[in-house]
């Protein structure tokens, strides 16, 4: 039943695809919220993700000096706060001046932020790779045994379990926020129509702050999950992740957070599964082109169905 095909497929293609998908999904949530509520493509999002990862590493390093070993998910908390401050700061000084100008200005500003933040990280932490060691890379023995008993064997390292669990928790929390809290509903309202929200008396500035906060939490999580998965940090991470995350947001429909989650999973899976030897012995797509998959999907969406799968806003 569970032959070599299944084993290899699930453990080396499907699961990594889902993991990558979770990371893209979390990043895309922030992007789609910014796109929907603030109405621009935030090119700095990838770099902020990366900053979150670097800050988490630093927290763990500092704790290490003090003799403590912190789990990344714990170290993530202070890092998230700093990332939120970073988001709010860049908004106040670099994006807010352009709220009433053409979109292009704020996009250019975000492009500039992308560079400034990346350079800052390179200055502070240096351009070399840093290892993110956690000893969580070993496959989870409980899960392996359990699944082996059923007739399959799932080799899932603990780090992946944390990533899956973390993503699910964040998505559930987000859903609660957007559907059951006043500020969450206001976020959906502003995403629908900022003008109407304004004349309804909604405090749009507060909604914008909330957007950056939620985006910051999701971005930090995405960044930390990414470095947990690949177990290293480097300064090209941010830009590398940016395009697939944009693709995921566009695929799901701009302004639709669930769409972003779906889009992220699809793109993550597509990227990993494209290297699988579906037909014959060689990978369907040469692994060097993996990163192009996301982009190809995005261009097709932009031409064929710009409002995305979940009917977000088109342009």
């Amino acid at each position, binding site marked *: 039943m569970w032959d070599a095909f299944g084993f290899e497929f699930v453990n080396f293609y499907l699961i990594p695809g889902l993991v990558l998908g979770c990371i893209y999904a979390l990043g895309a949530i922030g992007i789609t919220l910014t796109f929907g509520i603030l109405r621009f493509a935030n090119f700095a999002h990838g770099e902020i993700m990366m900053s979150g990862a670097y800050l988490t590493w630093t927290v763990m390093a500092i704790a290490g000096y003090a003799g403590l070993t912190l789990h990344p998910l714990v170290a993530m908390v202070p890092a998230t706060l700093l990332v939120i401050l970073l988001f709010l700061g860049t908004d106040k000084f670099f994006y807010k001046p352009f709220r009433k100008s053409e979109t292009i200005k704020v996009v250019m500003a975000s492009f500039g932020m992308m560079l400034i933040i990346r350079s800052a990280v390179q200055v502070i932490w240096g351009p070399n790779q840093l290892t993110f060691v956690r000893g969580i890379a070993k496959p989870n023995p409980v899960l392996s045994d359990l699944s082996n008993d059923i007739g399959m064997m799932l080799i899932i390292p603990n780090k992946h379990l944390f990533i899956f669990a973390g993503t699910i928790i964040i998505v559930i929390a987000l859903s609660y926020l957007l559907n059951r809290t*006043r500020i969450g*509903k*206001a976020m*959906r*309202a502003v*995403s*629908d*129509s900022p*003008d*109407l*929200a*304004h*004349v*309804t*008396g*909604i*405090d*749009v500035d507060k909604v914008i702050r909330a957007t950056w906060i939620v985006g910051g939490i999701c971005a930090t999580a995405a960044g930390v999950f990414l470095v947990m998965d690949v177990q290293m940090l480097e300064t090209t991470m941010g830009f590398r992740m940016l395009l697939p995350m944009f693709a995921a947001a566009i695929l799901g429909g701009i302004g639709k957070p669930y769409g972003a989650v779906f889009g992220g999973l699809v793109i993550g899976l597509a990227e990993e599964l494209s290297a699988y030897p579906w037909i014959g012995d060689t990978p369907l797509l040469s692994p060097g082109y993996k990163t192009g998959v996301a982009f190809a999907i995005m261009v097709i969406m932009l031409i064929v169905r710009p409002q995305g799968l979940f009917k977000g806003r088109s342009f």
Partner: protein
Amino acid sequence: MSMGQSNAVLSLNNLRAGYGQTEILHDLSIYVNPNEIVAIIGPNGAGKSTAMKAVLGLLNITEGSVVLNGEDITDTPAQKVIERGISYVPQTNNVFVNLSVQENLEMGAWTRPTGVEARLDEMYNLFPDLAEKRNQAAGSLSGGQRQMVAMAKALMVDAKILLLDEPTAGLSPKYRGEIFSTIQKIKGTGVPILIVEQNAKQALGVSDRGYVLVDGANRHTGTGADLAADPEIARMFLGGGH
């Protein structure tokens, strides 16, 4: 100006305003008394909707003032104006399409977040159709029902005055009638209403007073009945069709 002005709920006094350097309203004066329905009618481009936007602080006001219950609200930003009790229903794009009817009403109550439950019940009594559709997305409703949602949403904040911008635009005759009877119901709850309308005849039919605007300035004023009966005005816009 006539006597009713001093205890007016809302008055626009000798207003000159426009977008940037372009002046659209020229020395405009309008007032609404308590328990009144006042209609602003006029040809296309007369500046009717613009007059409403002036109240909300969305325009560049160069001269004159806007006063709400004795308080000067000229140039006050929209959110503050709404907190003071002005409720505005724009002509288009007046509901949050992806939010449910109830969520739309909840958003309407943003500036007054206490006692929302009670006011929701009031609204569902006033607009029974909406009660059954309360969990449906506002975007999936018909034009007329959407207009109802828009009005109910505007009423969630204990409005001192309701501004309606062309509430019957694009609606079928059946819904037009419903809207106007709803407007009268609202008046019955004690909220004065200022309507901008293309549909002059029906608007004057429910209004206590009316203003005819042409090219951003006052042209005629009078009671609803008088204006409706005036042959010159009839010639201007009340000709068949509407």
